[in-house]
């Protein structure tokens, strides 16, 4: 039985191909650098922009998108609580972004076949952060700035600077899946 627990791996964004190839399902990863937030409506707008051949608000190449809609920042903080939201709501949009160079996504819950296939084909990784650990995760965010779709409020695209942001690899580029593996191991 392969061990699911490993030492934490530190990676920085944008993600190099070498790093992506080295990441395996079940790896505990600490991300540092810039990541971008986007959820439902922002995804729809990004994919519409690609369809209409418009310029995107940020270059997707090598980047990570974090599926989150934070609480408002209190006066003494850079951001409010910011945990992952359910990723499957982004399934119909993610493949188009992966095709454009997106290399990582952070969310919670399983992804659809179309996303898993795109991740394998274009070499991208899906990470999970712990759902409901939003206060803890917010402490790893050092800067936050709205860069697009400000009208969407909490759903706007934010550029976050993160330091040792804790995630775990769910889907690697080799087609492995932590949720399936974990369930199989502990089912009675």
């Amino acid at each position, binding site marked *: 039985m392969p061990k699911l627990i490993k030492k934490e791996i530190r990676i920085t964004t944008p993600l190099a191909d070498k790093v992506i190839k080295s990441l395996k399902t079940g790896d505990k990863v600490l991300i540092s650098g810039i990541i971008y937030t986007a959820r439902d409506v922002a995804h729809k707008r990004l994919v519409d922009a690609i369809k209409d051949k418009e310029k995107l608000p940020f270059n997707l190449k090598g980047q990570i998108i974090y599926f989150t*809609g934070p609480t*408002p*920042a209190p006066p003494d903080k850079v951001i409010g609580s910011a945990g992952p939201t359910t990723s499957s709501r982004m399934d119909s949009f993610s493949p188009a972004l992966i095709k454009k160079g997106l290399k990582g996504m952070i969310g919670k819950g399983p992804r659809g076949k179309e996303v898993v296939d795109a991740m394998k084909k274009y070499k991208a990784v899906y990470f999970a952060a712990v759902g*409901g650990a*939003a206060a*803890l995760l917010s402490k790893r965010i050092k800067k936050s700035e709205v860069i697009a779709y400000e009208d969407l409020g909490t759903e706007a695209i934010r550029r976050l600077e993160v330091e040792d942001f804790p995630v775990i690899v769910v889907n690697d580029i080799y087609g492995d899946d932590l949720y399936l593996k974990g*369930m199989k191991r*502990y*089912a009675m």
Partner: protein
Amino acid sequence: MKEIHFNDIADKIAQMCIDAACNLDEDILSALDRAIEIEKSTLGIEVLRQLKENAEIARNESLPVCQDTGMALFFVEYGEDVKIKGGLLNDAINEGVRQGYKKGYLRKSIVNDPITRRNTQDNTPAIIHTELVAGNNLKINFKIVGAGCENMSKIKMLKPTEGIEGIKSFVIDTVKEGGINACPPLIIGVGLGGNFEMCAILSKKSLMRPIGQPNKRMEIASLEEDILKDINKLGIGPAGFGGRVTALAVHIETYPCHIASLPVAVNLNCHASRKKALIL
């Protein structure tokens, strides 16, 4: 007749919203402690510890436990001998939600219409269920209802002859299908009987109980225990990363129903069980 002022209700509700979002109750914290003791997966234990640490950070820094500070849900027991001065109960509650979500820097997650979807900017309206009771108390039970787990909840009208086995397999299948998305370890609210809308309300009501407090009827309490055991055999585990603790508790509430019906509602609740109560 007891008079309660509109503003008193609104102020108390505002405080209750912030308190619920940032301070988890003892029942969920000790349920997580018990889970740490029985979990077999090392990664699962790490997740559970992270959740405890998260609760501590939230409390110390007045940060919401989860960024989804939800739709505000109220079960009100309105004493017949209570008179609200200065306005209507529902307006007072919504005013409290408006103030609390602003003052507490909670996320405003409500859109005005399911189709046009414009954010109302103040997290109103709340969902309010009011029951008229005897006496001169106004009891307000509040719950923050996030969408992650709510979206994975289900309702089914079973055939009466499907019985206990039918109920069990519907609850377990619901967890199997959507459990990972709902932020496990879960608290599972089950409404049995009544009719279509009643069983849904019962499933939600059951989640207002302290976590793990069994149903008063022995046979229902043992059904809760049975279903919990089966759910924890699924292997989903904390955060869905695999493990023995997929659910912390199963709560069932029942109501009489039609000879031809066996309605079942399964309301999944994430581990961030945020509820508060107050009596005025």
